[in-house]
């Protein structure tokens, strides 16, 4: 995903001179193509995220489209008030990019796990929150982020996320992309865990269940009518995210509750109690019961409860 991001950014920056990239001294072996091609529009702001975010605000006030880049929580939590007061309240063209959404930085530990980012960013005003599921969606999300006016949060995986789309899908902010269609259960997935979700769906299909999968590349804003109609097509809706409470599960629960339509729902998400565990991404997903295997087992219990 990181590579899809930087390739897209370079491509867009070639056409659009308003594009700037600011990093908080991270992105070694990722950002060099931009830094080398557009040195006048690349700033390593140092390990100083509050100032980086303020500088991005000043640049955006001057007509630039500014990407800020760092890993996990660094470009969001350390400078959250700058994002809230300066970028979001003034509705400015700053696109905040965080690499390593969820527990992608595994053994680096709690400091490097972005497990509340979606919950926090989605409640801010004016901001669009994007969490693409594979490198193809990253490219499409980048184009959408630049085209739209206003702030954007882009949550990326760390790298190595497999491509899920055979053909380039239609991408519109707010509308999930359907990847599998079925009648029994709809699995809504956000971010880089999409591969596990598709694996789980295919496993369930082999076992005779009819499964829908949609990639929720946008968490805010959402086409709620579209989403409700998607959810109504199956008996059950589940959400999967590499994130703690307050993210996709809360969003879908809110939409379902407000719709007044009885839709059965189950969330798969990380539990804050497991955040302290040491392990790689795979291990930590397993500790949080959000692997493909966990999804298969639990969905079968939901659809076919033991009598």
């Amino acid at each position, binding site marked *: 995903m990181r590579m899809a991001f930087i390739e897209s950014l370079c491509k867009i920056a070639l056409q659009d001179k308003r594009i700037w990239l600011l990093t908080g001294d991270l992105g070694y072996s990722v950002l060099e193509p931009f830094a080398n091609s557009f040195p*006048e*529009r690349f*700033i390593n*702001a*140092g390990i*100083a995220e*509050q*100032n*980086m*975010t*303020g*500088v*991005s*605000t*000043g*640049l*955006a*006030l*001057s*007509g*630039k489209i500014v990407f800020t880049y760092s890993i996990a929580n660094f470009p969001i939590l350390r400078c959250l*008030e*700058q994002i809230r*007061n*300066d970028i979001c*309240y*003034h509705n400015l063209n700053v696109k905040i990019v965080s690499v390593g959404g969820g527990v992608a930085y595994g053994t680096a530990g709690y400091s490097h796990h972005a497990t509340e980012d979606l919950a926090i960013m989605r409640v801010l005003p004016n901001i669009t929150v994007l969490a693409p599921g594979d490198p193809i969606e990253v490219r499409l999300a980048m184009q959408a982020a630049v085209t739209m006016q206003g702030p954007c949060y882009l949550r990326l995986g760390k790298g190595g996320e497999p491509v899920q789309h055979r053909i380039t899908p239609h991408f519109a902010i707010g509308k999930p992309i359907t990847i599998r269609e079925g009648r029994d259960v709809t699995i809504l997935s956000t971010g880089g865990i999409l591969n596990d979700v598709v694996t789980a769906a295919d496993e369930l299909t082999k076992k005779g269940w009819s499964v829908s999968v949609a990639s929720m590349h946008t968490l805010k804003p959402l086409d709620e009518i579209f989403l409700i109609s998607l959810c109504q097509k199956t008996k059950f809706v589940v959400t999967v995210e590499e994130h703690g409470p307050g993210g996709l599960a809360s969003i879908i629960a809110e939409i379902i509750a407000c719709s007044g339509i009885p839709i059965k729902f189950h969330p798969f998400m990380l539990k804050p109690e497991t955040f302290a565990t040491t392990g790689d991404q795979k291990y930590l997903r397993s500790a949080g019961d959000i692997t493909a295997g966990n999804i298969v087992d639990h969905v079968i219990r939901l659809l076919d409860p033991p009598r």
Partner: protein
Amino acid sequence: MNSTKKDASIQLAKIIRTNALRMVHTAHASHIASNLSIADILAVLYENILNVNWSQPEWPDRDRFILSKGHASAILYAVLAEKGFFPKDDLTNFCRNGSELIGHANHRVPGVELSTGSLGHGLPIGCGLALAGKKDGKSYRTFVLLGDGEMNEGSNWESLLFAAQHKLDNLIAIVDCNAIQGFGATKDILNLQPFSDKWQAFRWSVKEIDGHNHAEIKNVLATVPFSEGTPSVIIAHTVKGKGVKYMEDQLAWHYRSPDGDQLAIAISEIEGTP
């Protein structure tokens, strides 16, 4: 000509002091003493220094002014109204329900560049504005007015490093050093001294002035940048509550709002000053 201009800024300072007092009194708002300590700096900036145009508040080549100590919004609104950015009658709406004249600076008010209020935000944004100006070959300057208490915020020190690193000599910080912050004297809370040395160590060009002496304010602002390739800072020694004797250097007037009698005394003092 020069003396007329100087007198003009002195007259302007009187008007915005009295208007800020009236606004804060009517709204029962706080921060009057913080407003009064920057009255002279604002008057000189808007009378003599800033290249801004009330009829085109968003003119791209305008000088940028950011009030980072956003709690002194009353006197900023007062000076902008006086300079024609919006009707003076609107000042009576300060802090009124539904009004744009919020108790901390509001960017939706013509002439206000940025909404502020939480401290430590203005200087990083000023760095971005100055950097854009440099890269775009623009001649506008960016002025950021901060409080000395505000210099407790770490974000400012990140910006000090950044501005020097990027040689932002089109960026001018002005620190309103009234020596009092939320709970008492700045020296007793987080002592900033040696303040001037700190800025110098961060590779800024520094000048210290009496922040109430119009000739000094004007002279120093007329000579920015102090050194090519270096951001400039003006350390302005001020008196919190300046112009109203019973408010001067009194922490309580960071919070209190003058009643009718106190307002009358304050206005007569200001109007009685030569």
